[in-house]
């Protein structure tokens, strides 16, 4: 089971579901136009029901769905005062590290692409534009409209979210949650997109540019890969990296701080002069917004785990040892 899934299962608690009224599915062009059924007002203290029924199925069965949908009514806005940043994204209790790492990568390299993808309809809904490639590689656009009611675990969104301190206050930006919800609606449900995927597809969906994946293995220092990543970093191309099997001994040591079957954002590459040598580094980000599980951080005395936002730097050889592939968008 992937590391992110372990996290999800650990926190799974069956919670009785509120009965959900029948509602029309949005964006069904063939459906006849009918008066919208009235949604019963929620009882005081109860969460509002979901407006987009096509994305309700977020676990194996609805009966086990531990989450309830709530409106974000704490003054959250789509974009924060500090703009779109890679560090805005935090993966939730769903197996979509590929999506979270890709959103973070695009946010870090091409924040305009994220801002242009989301249109605020000013009526509580948001229209998100995605791209996909057809059999011939041609780009086509597809849009989904969703509201900001999100599956919650306690007081926090259960899936992708952004939580950061701005001016000393906890501030929540909605854009990662909105993007993820629209993507889930596009693919059919949270469940449909929550069982692994290709980070390159999400980057393509946001930028319209094709993604290419390359292996990290190679002869010697693998200068060809370094050159490719350095060029992508310099040109602000979004990048992600993927790890191998979770049973692999490479990921058993908490000192490694990298987990198997997981996707990471590549924030960039750096070269630093150390003596008469030039050392190569890759800056990575775990979409959990922390590098290690808390237990692993405690075991290795990692005191920055909760403050570094999941960002860490690896030497080139160590990066190639721990990661099996790199995906570059554009």
């Amino acid at each position, binding site marked *: 089971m992937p590391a992110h899934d372990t996290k999800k299962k650990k926190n799974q608690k069956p919670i009785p579901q509120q009965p959900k009224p029948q509602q029309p599915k949005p964006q069904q062009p063939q459906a006849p136009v009918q008066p919208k059924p009235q949604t019963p007002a929620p009882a005081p203290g109860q969460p509002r029901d979901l407006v987009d029924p096509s994305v309700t199925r977020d676990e194996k069965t609805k009966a086990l769905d531990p989450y309830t949908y709530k409106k974000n009514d704490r003054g959250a806005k789509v974009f924060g005062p500090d703009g779109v940043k890679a560090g805005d994204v935090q993966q939730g209790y769903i197996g979509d590290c590929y999506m979270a790492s890709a959103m973070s990568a695009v946010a870090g390299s091409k924040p305009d692409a994220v801002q242009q993808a989301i249109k605020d309809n000013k009526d509580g809904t948001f229209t998100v534009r995605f791209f996909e490639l057809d059999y011939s590689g041609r780009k086509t656009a*597809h849009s989904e409209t969703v509201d900001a009611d999100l599956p919650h675990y306690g007081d926090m969104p259960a899936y992708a979210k952004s939580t950061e301190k701005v001016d000393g206050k906890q501030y929540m930006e909605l854009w990662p949650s909105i993007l993820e919800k629209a993507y889930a609606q596009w*693919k059919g449900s949270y469940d449909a997109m929550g069982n*692994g995927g290709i980070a390159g597809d999400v980057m393509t969906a946001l930028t319209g540019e094709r993604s290419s994946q390359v292996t990290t*293995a*190679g002869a010697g*220092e693998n200068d060809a890969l370094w*050159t490719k990543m350095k060029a992508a970093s310099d040109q602000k191309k979004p990048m992600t990296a993927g790890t191998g099997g979770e049973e*692999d001994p490479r990921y058993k040591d908490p000192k490694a701080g990298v987990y198997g079957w997981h996707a990471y954002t590549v924030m960039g590459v750096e070269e630093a002069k150390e003596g008469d040598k030039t050392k190569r580094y890759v800056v990575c980000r775990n979409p959990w917004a922390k590098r290690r599980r808390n237990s692993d951080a405690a075991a290795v005395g990692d005191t920055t785990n909760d403050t570094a936002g999941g960002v860490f730097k690896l030497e080139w050889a160590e990066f190639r040892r721990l990661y099996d592939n790199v995906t570059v968008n554009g």
Partner: protein
Amino acid sequence: MPNGTRPRIQVKTLKLPRVIAILAYCAASQFLSFVAGHAVQATEKATMHTASGHDTTSAANAKPICEVQVEAGGDHLAHALLEAAPGSHLCLQPGVHSASLSISKSLTLRGIAAGVILQGSGRDSVLRVDDDGVALRLENLVLQGGSAQAGGGLAIFGRGKVHASDCTFCDNTGGMVGGGAVYARAGMLVLERCIFTRNHGRQGGALMLDMAMHAELQRCEFSNNTADIAGALRISEAAEVDLKACKLAGNLGADGSQVRASGTRSRVPTVRLDHCEVDSGRLINGPEIQGHITAKGCKLPASWKGSATDGGGNTWRPAI
């Protein structure tokens, strides 16, 4: 040759009993496939073409073309791939060839007898095709021991054409995305008389066919593959797949399905089953967004009846 331009080679040191066990199991599977395949080939002679369109056998008794002979062991195959001219036919000797290789030019890799094994390193797919325009033909090979996020045996990301015949895919893993044996997402994939066994994928224990691609599977057999979702085949997005005279038996998905197809709100997959046999397990179509699935002349579990369009001539039977 500068560093980094050579295909990767990961020579995995295996203990002798493990090697013998792998060779025995997979080579036996391949031998049976090889014999069965050549019986079929006798009636189909001169119809085989390379992916690039050239005849590989011009007459019934003609010797196959082999520009390059590749001995087993070491990194002979990696070197041969580097040096081969595009369009070459590489004939591989029986034995274990270290693989985990990227194929970036059009080639034919041919096992000259049973027991030609491409052994994955456990850190990548046995073979990968990343570039567009590559026409790859695989004949009479065993691809085993690969482990990748998608497509432990064969990962096809580029838009080209891959044609595999009389090949066995066993003990491969596609653990994060799926397609234990094969993950394909672009171009054309043809699989003839191939055997898929004991592969594991997150989605699609044997195959995951994704995005916008076409696949044609003829006389392929799937057995004892496992997955979280769809023990044998996972088909998604706009993939278009024809299965002809294929057999699926004992492929176990944790969701109870052997085959699962689902689309998105912008496109859906198409699956056509023609004279196929399935022993048990569910066909999950969707559940949220269904694909177009039709079956004709097939022997299928009764539970499949509601999930696929009946094209006629099907036998619906209780699950074994």
